[in-house]
Protein backbone atom coordinates (compact mmCIF):
# COMPACT_ATOMS: atom_id res chain seq x y z
CA UNK A 1 0.00 0.00 0.00
CA UNK A 2 1.27 3.46 -0.91
CA UNK A 3 1.02 5.62 2.20
CA UNK A 4 1.07 8.77 0.10
CA UNK A 5 -2.20 7.63 -1.56
CA UNK A 6 -3.93 8.08 1.84
CA UNK A 7 -4.98 11.38 3.36
CA UNK A 8 -3.10 11.19 6.61
CA UNK A 9 -2.50 14.88 7.11
CA UNK A 10 -5.55 15.48 9.33
CA UNK A 11 -4.63 12.59 11.61
CA UNK A 12 -1.02 13.74 11.74
CA UNK A 13 -2.11 17.29 12.55
CA UNK A 14 -4.29 16.01 15.41
CA UNK A 15 -1.39 14.07 16.88
CA UNK A 16 1.03 16.92 16.45
CA UNK A 17 -1.39 19.19 18.24
CA UNK A 18 -1.61 16.69 21.09
CA UNK A 19 2.17 16.81 21.38
CA UNK A 20 2.69 13.36 19.86
CA UNK A 21 3.80 14.13 16.31
CA UNK A 22 4.01 11.12 14.04
CA UNK A 23 5.18 12.34 10.62
CA UNK A 24 5.28 9.96 7.65
CA UNK A 25 8.67 8.32 7.47
CA UNK A 26 10.35 9.62 4.31
CA UNK A 27 9.79 7.37 1.29
CA UNK A 28 8.45 4.53 3.45
CA UNK A 29 5.39 2.40 2.71
CA UNK A 30 5.70 0.53 5.96
CA UNK A 31 2.26 -0.73 7.15
CA UNK A 32 3.68 -0.70 10.68
CA UNK A 33 3.57 3.09 10.47
CA UNK A 34 -0.13 2.98 9.66
CA UNK A 35 -0.67 0.74 12.68
CA UNK A 36 1.23 3.18 14.91
CA UNK A 37 -0.86 6.02 13.56
CA UNK A 38 -4.14 4.17 14.24
CA UNK A 39 -2.98 3.24 17.76
CA UNK A 40 -2.02 6.82 18.48
CA UNK A 41 -5.42 8.05 17.26
CA UNK A 42 -7.26 5.49 19.39
CA UNK A 43 -5.20 6.52 22.38
CA UNK A 44 -6.01 10.14 21.68
CA UNK A 45 -9.74 9.43 21.36
CA UNK A 46 -9.80 7.88 24.84
CA UNK A 47 -8.00 10.70 26.63
CA UNK A 48 -9.20 13.88 28.18
CA UNK A 49 -7.10 16.55 26.46
CA UNK A 50 -6.78 18.82 29.48
CA UNK A 51 -5.74 16.33 32.12
CA UNK A 52 -4.45 13.37 30.13
CA UNK A 53 -6.75 11.08 32.10
CA UNK A 54 -9.24 8.69 30.48
CA UNK A 55 -12.19 10.56 29.09
CA UNK A 56 -15.80 9.77 29.81
CA UNK A 57 -16.10 7.50 26.78
CA UNK A 58 -13.16 5.37 27.85
CA UNK A 59 -14.37 5.35 31.44
CA UNK A 60 -17.81 4.02 30.47
CA UNK A 61 -16.36 1.26 28.33
CA UNK A 62 -13.91 0.31 31.11
CA UNK A 63 -16.81 0.27 33.57
CA UNK A 64 -18.83 -2.06 31.33
CA UNK A 65 -15.84 -4.37 31.06
CA UNK A 66 -15.42 -4.37 34.83
CA UNK A 67 -19.10 -5.21 35.36
CA UNK A 68 -18.73 -8.10 32.98
CA UNK A 69 -15.66 -9.31 34.81
CA UNK A 70 -17.19 -8.96 38.27
CA UNK A 71 -20.36 -10.80 37.31
CA UNK A 72 -18.29 -13.69 36.01
CA UNK A 73 -15.44 -13.77 38.50
CA UNK A 74 -17.34 -12.65 41.60
CA UNK A 75 -14.51 -10.24 42.33
CA UNK A 76 -14.65 -7.13 44.49
CA UNK A 77 -14.47 -3.86 42.58
CA UNK A 78 -14.83 -0.30 43.80
CA UNK A 79 -16.01 2.75 41.91
CA UNK A 80 -15.03 6.13 43.32
CA UNK A 81 -16.60 9.40 42.19
CA UNK A 82 -14.76 12.57 43.18
CA UNK A 83 -15.58 16.21 42.96
CA UNK A 84 -13.33 19.20 43.68
CA UNK A 85 -14.85 21.21 46.54
CA UNK A 86 -15.94 24.76 45.68
CA UNK A 87 -14.35 24.61 42.25
CA UNK A 88 -16.56 27.41 40.97
CA UNK A 89 -14.86 29.77 43.43
CA UNK A 90 -11.49 28.98 41.87
CA UNK A 91 -12.76 29.89 38.42
CA UNK A 92 -14.56 32.98 39.70
CA UNK A 93 -11.67 34.34 41.72
CA UNK A 94 -8.66 33.28 39.69
CA UNK A 95 -10.00 32.74 36.18
CA UNK A 96 -10.42 29.68 34.02
CA UNK A 97 -6.71 29.10 33.30
CA UNK A 98 -6.24 28.71 37.06
CA UNK A 99 -9.18 26.32 37.09
CA UNK A 100 -7.49 24.27 34.39
CA UNK A 101 -4.31 24.20 36.41
CA UNK A 102 -6.24 22.91 39.42
CA UNK A 103 -7.84 20.20 37.30
CA UNK A 104 -4.43 19.09 36.02
CA UNK A 105 -2.91 19.07 39.47
CA UNK A 106 -5.78 17.02 40.92
CA UNK A 107 -5.53 14.62 37.98
CA UNK A 108 -1.85 14.19 38.69
CA UNK A 109 -2.47 13.49 42.37
CA UNK A 110 -5.15 10.92 41.51
CA UNK A 111 -2.87 9.02 39.17
CA UNK A 112 -0.13 9.01 41.79
CA UNK A 113 -2.44 7.44 44.39
CA UNK A 114 -3.67 4.39 42.47
CA UNK A 115 -2.30 1.26 40.83
CA UNK A 116 -1.50 1.12 37.10
CA UNK A 117 -4.44 -1.28 36.61
CA UNK A 118 -6.95 1.27 37.93
CA UNK A 119 -8.81 3.53 35.52
CA UNK A 120 -8.72 7.21 36.43
CA UNK A 121 -11.05 9.34 34.35
CA UNK A 122 -12.31 12.86 34.08
CA UNK A 123 -16.04 12.29 34.24
CA UNK A 124 -16.93 15.85 33.36
CA UNK A 125 -16.33 19.37 34.65
CA UNK A 126 -14.60 19.09 38.00
CA UNK A 127 -15.81 15.54 38.56
CA UNK A 128 -13.52 12.52 38.34
CA UNK A 129 -14.11 8.78 38.50
CA UNK A 130 -11.82 5.90 39.41
CA UNK A 131 -12.44 2.20 38.81
CA UNK A 132 -10.51 -0.05 41.18
CA UNK A 133 -10.70 -3.69 40.09
CA UNK A 134 -9.91 -6.47 42.59
CA UNK A 135 -10.20 -4.12 45.52
CA UNK A 136 -10.93 -5.54 48.98
CA UNK A 137 -13.09 -3.36 51.20
CA UNK A 138 -10.30 -2.56 53.67
CA UNK A 139 -8.09 -1.22 50.90
CA UNK A 140 -10.83 0.78 49.18
CA UNK A 141 -11.23 3.08 52.16
CA UNK A 142 -7.45 3.41 52.43
CA UNK A 143 -7.06 4.42 48.79
CA UNK A 144 -9.82 7.00 49.09
CA UNK A 145 -8.24 8.44 52.24
CA UNK A 146 -4.85 8.56 50.57
CA UNK A 147 -6.32 10.56 47.68
CA UNK A 148 -8.02 12.94 50.07
CA UNK A 149 -4.82 13.54 52.05
CA UNK A 150 -2.58 13.91 49.03
CA UNK A 151 -4.78 16.47 47.31
CA UNK A 152 -5.22 18.48 50.50
CA UNK A 153 -1.44 18.43 51.00
CA UNK A 154 -0.55 19.47 47.45
CA UNK A 155 -0.45 23.25 47.00
CA UNK A 156 -1.13 24.40 43.46
CA UNK A 157 1.09 27.32 42.46
CA UNK A 158 -0.69 29.45 39.90
CA UNK A 159 1.07 31.37 37.12
CA UNK A 160 0.45 34.47 39.21
CA UNK A 161 2.66 32.94 41.87
CA UNK A 162 -0.26 32.51 44.23
CA UNK A 163 -0.60 29.08 45.84
CA UNK A 164 -4.01 27.44 46.02
CA UNK A 165 -5.18 24.64 48.25
CA UNK A 166 -8.13 22.52 47.15
CA UNK A 167 -9.93 19.60 48.69
CA UNK A 168 -12.13 16.92 47.18
CA UNK A 169 -15.17 14.98 48.25
CA UNK A 170 -15.22 11.30 47.44
CA UNK A 171 -18.11 8.86 47.18
CA UNK A 172 -17.71 5.18 46.49
CA UNK A 173 -19.68 2.00 45.94
CA UNK A 174 -18.60 -1.59 45.45
CA UNK A 175 -19.96 -3.64 42.58
CA UNK A 176 -22.72 -5.96 43.75
CA UNK A 177 -21.30 -9.44 43.40
CA UNK A 178 -24.40 -11.40 42.77
CA UNK A 179 -26.89 -9.11 41.08
CA UNK A 180 -27.15 -8.11 37.48
CA UNK A 181 -26.54 -4.40 37.33
CA UNK A 182 -25.79 -1.63 34.91
CA UNK A 183 -23.05 0.96 34.68
CA UNK A 184 -25.68 3.64 35.28
CA UNK A 185 -26.84 1.98 38.51
CA UNK A 186 -23.29 1.66 39.78
CA UNK A 187 -22.48 5.28 39.01
CA UNK A 188 -25.71 6.33 40.68
CA UNK A 189 -24.76 4.50 43.87
CA UNK A 190 -21.28 6.00 43.98
CA UNK A 191 -22.77 9.40 43.18
CA UNK A 192 -25.25 9.07 46.05
CA UNK A 193 -22.27 8.63 48.38
CA UNK A 194 -20.55 11.64 46.80
CA UNK A 195 -23.62 13.75 47.52
CA UNK A 196 -23.52 12.47 51.08
CA UNK A 197 -19.86 13.46 51.40
CA UNK A 198 -20.77 16.94 50.13
CA UNK A 199 -23.74 17.22 52.45
CA UNK A 200 -21.70 16.13 55.46
CA UNK A 201 -19.26 18.99 54.95
CA UNK A 202 -16.96 18.12 52.00
CA UNK A 203 -13.29 17.08 52.11
CA UNK A 204 -14.29 13.58 53.14
CA UNK A 205 -14.89 10.04 51.95
CA UNK A 206 -18.26 8.31 52.05
CA UNK A 207 -18.34 4.71 50.93
CA UNK A 208 -21.52 2.71 50.58
CA UNK A 209 -21.57 0.37 53.58
CA UNK A 210 -20.25 -3.06 52.72
CA UNK A 211 -21.98 -6.17 53.97
CA UNK A 212 -19.35 -7.37 56.35
CA UNK A 213 -19.01 -11.11 56.75
CA UNK A 214 -16.02 -10.74 59.02
CA UNK A 215 -16.83 -11.40 62.65
CA UNK A 216 -14.78 -9.11 64.86
CA UNK A 217 -13.03 -10.17 68.04
CA UNK A 218 -15.51 -8.03 69.95
CA UNK A 219 -18.44 -9.87 68.40
CA UNK A 220 -16.83 -13.23 69.12
CA UNK A 221 -16.18 -12.33 72.71
CA UNK A 222 -19.80 -11.34 73.10
CA UNK A 223 -20.90 -14.54 71.35
CA UNK A 224 -18.81 -16.83 73.52
CA UNK A 225 -17.15 -14.94 76.34
CA UNK A 226 -20.07 -13.91 78.49
CA UNK A 227 -22.30 -16.64 77.25
CA UNK A 228 -23.92 -19.65 78.76
CA UNK A 229 -22.65 -21.53 75.74
CA UNK A 230 -19.63 -23.73 75.66
CA UNK A 231 -19.26 -25.50 78.93
CA UNK A 232 -19.96 -23.09 81.76
CA UNK A 233 -18.97 -24.87 84.91
CA UNK A 234 -20.67 -25.01 88.26
CA UNK A 235 -18.52 -24.55 91.31
CA UNK A 236 -18.00 -28.27 91.47
CA UNK A 237 -16.57 -28.29 87.95
CA UNK A 238 -19.49 -30.17 86.42
CA UNK A 239 -20.98 -28.78 83.22
CA UNK A 240 -24.27 -27.12 83.98
CA UNK A 241 -27.37 -28.32 82.21
CA UNK A 242 -29.59 -25.53 81.08
CA UNK A 243 -33.08 -26.00 82.39
CA UNK A 244 -35.75 -26.29 79.73
Amino acid sequence: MKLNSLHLDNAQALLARAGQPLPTPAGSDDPAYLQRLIDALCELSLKDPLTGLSNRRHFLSALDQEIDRVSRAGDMALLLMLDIDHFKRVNDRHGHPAGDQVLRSVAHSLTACVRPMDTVARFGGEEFAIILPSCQSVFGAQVAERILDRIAATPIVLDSGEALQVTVSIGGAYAPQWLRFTAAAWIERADAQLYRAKAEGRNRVCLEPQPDSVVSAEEKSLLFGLSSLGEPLHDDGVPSHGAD
Partner: protein
Amino acid sequence: MNQPSMNSTPPSPLAAAQAGLPAYNGKGKVMAVTSGKGGVGKTFFSANLAAALTRRGHKVLVLDADLGLANLDVVLNLYPKITLHDVFTGKATLEDAILKAPGGFSVLLAGSGMVEYSRLTPEVRDDFMKVMQTIVPRYDVVLLDTGAGISDVVLFAVSLATEVLMVATPEPTSLTDAYATIKVLAMQQGRQQVRLVVNQATRPGDGRNITAQLQQVLNRFLSNGPNAQPGQAIKLLHMGDVPSDQSVKDAIMRRQLLLVHAPGCPAALALGQIAGRIEEAVLGHHLA
Protein backbone atom coordinates in the same frame (compact mmCIF):
# COMPACT_ATOMS: atom_id res chain seq x y z
CA MET B 1 -12.91 14.30 60.16
CA ASN B 2 -11.48 12.42 57.24
CA GLN B 3 -12.63 9.01 58.28
CA PRO B 4 -14.68 7.15 55.68
CA SER B 5 -18.18 7.74 56.85
CA MET B 6 -20.23 4.60 57.39
CA ASN B 7 -23.30 6.19 58.84
CA SER B 8 -26.83 5.64 57.69
CA THR B 9 -27.51 6.47 54.12
CA PRO B 10 -30.70 7.01 52.17
CA PRO B 11 -31.64 3.65 50.68
CA SER B 12 -30.17 3.30 47.21
CA PRO B 13 -32.31 1.87 44.40
CA LEU B 14 -30.30 -1.30 44.75
CA ALA B 15 -30.88 -1.57 48.49
CA ALA B 16 -34.57 -1.03 47.88
CA ALA B 17 -34.61 -3.83 45.34
CA GLN B 18 -32.77 -6.07 47.74
CA ALA B 19 -35.07 -5.26 50.61
CA GLY B 20 -38.08 -6.43 48.62
CA LEU B 21 -38.68 -10.14 48.93
CA PRO B 22 -39.15 -11.99 45.68
CA ALA B 23 -42.68 -12.21 44.38
CA TYR B 24 -44.07 -15.38 42.88
CA ASN B 25 -47.41 -16.27 41.43
CA GLY B 26 -49.65 -18.36 43.63
CA LYS B 27 -49.26 -18.86 47.34
CA GLY B 28 -46.27 -21.19 47.30
CA LYS B 29 -43.67 -20.43 49.96
CA VAL B 30 -39.97 -20.53 49.27
CA MET B 31 -37.74 -21.38 52.19
CA ALA B 32 -33.96 -21.32 51.91
CA VAL B 33 -32.14 -23.72 54.20
CA THR B 34 -28.66 -22.43 54.83
CA SER B 35 -25.97 -22.73 57.48
CA GLY B 36 -22.85 -20.65 57.08
CA LYS B 37 -20.62 -23.55 58.03
CA GLY B 38 -20.71 -26.79 56.08
CA GLY B 39 -21.26 -30.21 57.60
CA VAL B 40 -23.86 -29.16 60.15
CA GLY B 41 -26.60 -31.33 58.66
CA LYS B 42 -28.24 -28.82 56.38
CA THR B 43 -29.06 -31.21 53.56
CA PHE B 44 -30.08 -33.92 56.00
CA PHE B 45 -32.40 -31.45 57.66
CA SER B 46 -33.87 -30.21 54.35
CA ALA B 47 -34.69 -33.73 53.20
CA ASN B 48 -36.28 -34.77 56.48
CA LEU B 49 -38.19 -31.51 56.87
CA ALA B 50 -39.55 -32.06 53.37
CA ALA B 51 -40.62 -35.59 54.33
CA ALA B 52 -42.28 -34.36 57.54
CA LEU B 53 -44.16 -31.57 55.74
CA THR B 54 -45.24 -34.03 53.06
CA ARG B 55 -46.56 -36.34 55.77
CA ARG B 56 -48.59 -33.39 57.03
CA GLY B 57 -50.27 -33.16 53.65
CA HIS B 58 -48.27 -30.42 51.92
CA LYS B 59 -46.95 -30.52 48.41
CA VAL B 60 -43.21 -30.05 48.79
CA LEU B 61 -40.27 -29.72 46.42
CA VAL B 62 -36.64 -29.63 47.49
CA LEU B 63 -34.34 -27.86 45.09
CA ASP B 64 -30.65 -28.57 45.29
CA ALA B 65 -29.34 -25.02 45.16
CA ASP B 66 -25.81 -26.03 46.06
CA LEU B 67 -24.89 -25.88 42.42
CA GLY B 68 -21.19 -26.47 42.75
CA LEU B 69 -21.07 -29.18 45.38
CA ALA B 70 -24.46 -30.78 45.57
CA ASN B 71 -25.08 -33.74 47.83
CA LEU B 72 -28.82 -33.96 48.16
CA ASP B 73 -28.56 -36.90 45.75
CA VAL B 74 -26.32 -38.72 48.22
CA VAL B 75 -28.62 -38.06 51.16
CA LEU B 76 -31.61 -39.33 49.20
CA ASN B 77 -29.73 -42.10 47.40
CA LEU B 78 -31.02 -40.84 44.06
CA TYR B 79 -28.77 -40.70 41.05
CA PRO B 80 -30.93 -39.46 38.19
CA LYS B 81 -29.87 -39.30 34.57
CA ILE B 82 -31.62 -35.98 34.11
CA THR B 83 -30.77 -33.05 36.40
CA LEU B 84 -31.14 -29.32 36.66
CA HIS B 85 -27.98 -29.13 34.57
CA ASP B 86 -29.86 -30.61 31.61
CA VAL B 87 -32.70 -28.16 32.15
CA PHE B 88 -30.26 -25.22 32.20
CA THR B 89 -28.55 -26.43 29.04
CA GLY B 90 -31.86 -27.08 27.30
CA LYS B 91 -31.31 -30.84 26.99
CA ALA B 92 -34.37 -31.74 29.05
CA THR B 93 -37.59 -30.17 30.25
CA LEU B 94 -38.16 -29.19 33.84
CA GLU B 95 -40.82 -31.89 34.14
CA ASP B 96 -38.28 -34.57 33.19
CA ALA B 97 -35.90 -33.41 35.89
CA ILE B 98 -38.37 -33.38 38.80
CA LEU B 99 -38.21 -36.68 40.68
CA LYS B 100 -40.17 -38.28 43.48
CA ALA B 101 -37.99 -38.76 46.55
CA PRO B 102 -38.46 -41.64 49.02
CA GLY B 103 -40.37 -39.40 51.45
CA GLY B 104 -43.04 -38.68 48.84
CA PHE B 105 -41.89 -35.15 48.07
CA SER B 106 -40.43 -33.89 44.80
CA VAL B 107 -36.79 -33.08 44.22
CA LEU B 108 -34.90 -31.18 41.62
CA LEU B 109 -31.26 -32.22 41.77
CA ALA B 110 -28.37 -30.16 40.55
CA GLY B 111 -26.23 -33.07 39.39
CA SER B 112 -22.50 -33.25 39.31
CA GLY B 113 -22.23 -31.44 36.00
CA MET B 114 -23.01 -28.19 37.73
CA VAL B 115 -19.47 -27.22 38.61
CA GLU B 116 -19.50 -24.73 35.79
CA TYR B 117 -22.49 -23.13 37.49
CA SER B 118 -20.71 -22.60 40.78
CA ARG B 119 -20.02 -19.08 39.58
CA LEU B 120 -23.00 -16.82 39.47
CA THR B 121 -23.07 -15.49 35.95
CA PRO B 122 -26.04 -13.55 34.63
CA GLU B 123 -26.96 -16.64 32.61
CA VAL B 124 -27.04 -18.91 35.66
CA ARG B 125 -29.06 -16.32 37.49
CA ASP B 126 -31.62 -16.10 34.70
CA ASP B 127 -31.86 -19.88 34.33
CA PHE B 128 -32.40 -20.23 38.05
CA MET B 129 -35.05 -17.51 38.15
CA LYS B 130 -36.97 -19.12 35.29
CA VAL B 131 -36.99 -22.48 37.05
CA MET B 132 -38.23 -20.84 40.26
CA GLN B 133 -41.00 -18.90 38.51
CA THR B 134 -42.22 -22.17 37.00
CA ILE B 135 -42.08 -24.44 40.03
CA VAL B 136 -43.14 -22.18 42.90
CA PRO B 137 -46.81 -21.89 41.83
CA ARG B 138 -47.05 -25.69 41.63
CA TYR B 139 -46.08 -26.43 45.25
CA ASP B 140 -47.10 -25.42 48.76
CA VAL B 141 -43.48 -25.01 49.71
CA VAL B 142 -40.19 -25.09 47.85
CA LEU B 143 -37.13 -25.75 50.02
CA LEU B 144 -33.86 -24.42 48.64
CA ASP B 145 -31.00 -26.48 49.97
CA THR B 146 -28.16 -24.00 49.60
CA GLY B 147 -24.45 -24.56 49.78
CA ALA B 148 -22.31 -23.75 52.78
CA GLY B 149 -20.59 -20.43 53.17
CA ILE B 150 -21.58 -16.96 52.04
CA SER B 151 -20.68 -17.25 48.39
CA ASP B 152 -22.51 -15.31 45.74
CA VAL B 153 -24.45 -18.42 44.70
CA VAL B 154 -25.60 -18.99 48.28
CA LEU B 155 -26.60 -15.36 48.73
CA PHE B 156 -28.38 -15.40 45.41
CA ALA B 157 -30.25 -18.63 46.24
CA VAL B 158 -31.28 -17.16 49.59
CA SER B 159 -32.41 -13.99 47.83
CA LEU B 160 -34.98 -16.10 45.97
CA ALA B 161 -36.55 -17.25 49.23
CA THR B 162 -39.36 -15.66 51.18
CA GLU B 163 -38.17 -17.38 54.36
CA VAL B 164 -34.70 -18.23 55.63
CA LEU B 165 -34.01 -21.20 57.85
CA MET B 166 -30.56 -21.35 59.38
CA VAL B 167 -29.21 -24.68 60.57
CA ALA B 168 -26.44 -24.51 63.16
CA THR B 169 -24.83 -26.80 65.68
CA PRO B 170 -23.75 -25.69 69.16
CA GLU B 171 -20.11 -25.70 68.04
CA PRO B 172 -18.46 -22.26 68.22
CA THR B 173 -17.32 -22.46 64.58
CA SER B 174 -20.86 -23.17 63.42
CA LEU B 175 -22.27 -20.35 65.53
CA THR B 176 -19.67 -17.88 64.28
CA ASP B 177 -20.45 -18.75 60.66
CA ALA B 178 -24.19 -18.68 61.29
CA TYR B 179 -23.81 -15.26 62.89
CA ALA B 180 -21.73 -13.96 59.98
CA THR B 181 -24.31 -15.24 57.50
CA ILE B 182 -27.24 -13.72 59.37
CA LYS B 183 -25.42 -10.40 59.51
CA VAL B 184 -24.81 -10.38 55.77
CA LEU B 185 -28.42 -11.36 55.07
CA ALA B 186 -29.63 -8.52 57.26
CA MET B 187 -27.34 -5.97 55.69
CA GLN B 188 -27.33 -7.07 52.10
CA GLN B 189 -30.84 -8.39 51.65
CA GLY B 190 -32.65 -6.37 54.27
CA ARG B 191 -33.93 -9.56 55.91
CA GLN B 192 -36.13 -8.86 58.91
CA GLN B 193 -36.12 -12.36 60.35
CA VAL B 194 -34.33 -15.67 60.16
CA ARG B 195 -35.57 -18.96 61.58
CA LEU B 196 -33.04 -21.02 63.47
CA VAL B 197 -32.81 -24.76 64.03
CA VAL B 198 -30.06 -26.15 66.22
CA ASN B 199 -28.90 -29.54 65.04
CA GLN B 200 -26.84 -32.03 67.07
CA ALA B 201 -28.00 -30.39 70.28
CA THR B 202 -26.52 -32.15 73.29
CA ARG B 203 -28.38 -30.51 76.14
CA PRO B 204 -31.95 -29.36 76.60
CA GLY B 205 -32.07 -25.62 76.19
CA ASP B 206 -29.09 -25.52 73.79
CA GLY B 207 -31.11 -23.98 70.99
CA ARG B 208 -32.88 -21.50 73.20
CA ASN B 209 -29.59 -20.30 74.72
CA ILE B 210 -27.91 -20.11 71.34
CA THR B 211 -30.79 -18.12 69.86
CA ALA B 212 -30.72 -15.68 72.77
CA GLN B 213 -26.98 -15.34 72.52
CA LEU B 214 -26.96 -14.74 68.76
CA GLN B 215 -29.85 -12.31 69.10
CA GLN B 216 -28.00 -10.35 71.77
CA VAL B 217 -24.92 -9.94 69.59
CA LEU B 218 -27.02 -9.06 66.55
CA ASN B 219 -28.87 -6.42 68.55
CA ARG B 220 -25.61 -4.96 69.63
CA PHE B 221 -23.80 -4.97 66.30
CA LEU B 222 -26.61 -4.63 63.80
CA SER B 223 -28.86 -2.04 65.39
CA ASN B 224 -25.94 0.36 65.08
CA GLY B 225 -25.01 -1.07 61.72
CA PRO B 226 -25.03 0.87 58.49
CA ASN B 227 -28.36 -0.25 57.07
CA ALA B 228 -30.30 -1.01 60.21
CA GLN B 229 -32.78 1.27 61.87
CA PRO B 230 -31.86 2.02 65.46
CA GLY B 231 -33.00 -0.80 67.69
CA GLN B 232 -34.21 -2.83 64.74
CA ALA B 233 -31.89 -5.79 64.48
CA ILE B 234 -32.89 -8.82 62.48
CA LYS B 235 -35.11 -11.14 64.51
CA LEU B 236 -34.10 -14.74 65.16
CA LEU B 237 -36.95 -17.20 65.59
CA HIS B 238 -36.01 -20.44 67.29
CA MET B 239 -37.87 -23.29 65.57
CA GLY B 240 -36.49 -26.08 67.72
CA ASP B 241 -33.57 -28.43 68.33
CA VAL B 242 -32.69 -31.74 66.75
CA PRO B 243 -30.90 -33.71 69.45
CA SER B 244 -27.66 -35.51 68.76
CA ASP B 245 -28.81 -39.06 68.02
CA GLN B 246 -26.99 -42.19 66.83
CA SER B 247 -29.97 -43.01 64.59
CA VAL B 248 -29.17 -39.94 62.50
CA LYS B 249 -25.69 -41.25 61.74
CA ASP B 250 -27.11 -44.68 60.93
CA ALA B 251 -29.72 -43.19 58.58
CA ILE B 252 -27.09 -41.11 56.78
CA MET B 253 -24.80 -44.12 56.38
CA ARG B 254 -27.71 -46.12 54.95
CA ARG B 255 -28.70 -43.15 52.80
CA GLN B 256 -32.19 -43.22 54.16
CA LEU B 257 -34.45 -40.53 55.49
CA LEU B 258 -34.42 -40.54 59.27
CA LEU B 259 -38.20 -40.43 59.21
CA VAL B 260 -38.14 -43.73 57.28
CA HIS B 261 -35.18 -45.35 59.04
CA ALA B 262 -36.09 -44.61 62.66
CA PRO B 263 -39.40 -42.73 62.85
CA GLY B 264 -39.63 -43.06 66.62
CA CYS B 265 -36.13 -41.91 67.58
CA PRO B 266 -35.69 -38.62 69.50
CA ALA B 267 -34.25 -36.78 66.49
CA ALA B 268 -37.14 -37.89 64.24
CA LEU B 269 -39.69 -36.81 66.84
CA ALA B 270 -37.97 -33.44 67.16
CA LEU B 271 -37.98 -33.04 63.37
CA GLY B 272 -41.72 -33.72 63.38
CA GLN B 273 -42.25 -31.00 65.97
CA ILE B 274 -40.14 -28.53 64.04
CA ALA B 275 -42.13 -29.30 60.90
CA GLY B 276 -45.28 -28.57 62.87
CA ARG B 277 -43.97 -25.19 63.99
CA ILE B 278 -42.82 -24.31 60.49
CA GLU B 279 -46.18 -25.36 59.12
CA GLU B 280 -47.94 -23.09 61.57
CA ALA B 281 -45.57 -20.15 61.14
CA VAL B 282 -44.84 -20.28 57.44
CA LEU B 283 -47.68 -22.16 55.77
CA GLY B 284 -50.13 -20.46 58.07
CA HIS B 285 -52.44 -23.41 58.56
CA HIS B 286 -52.66 -27.03 59.63
CA LEU B 287 -53.88 -29.48 57.05
CA ALA B 288 -54.00 -32.58 59.20
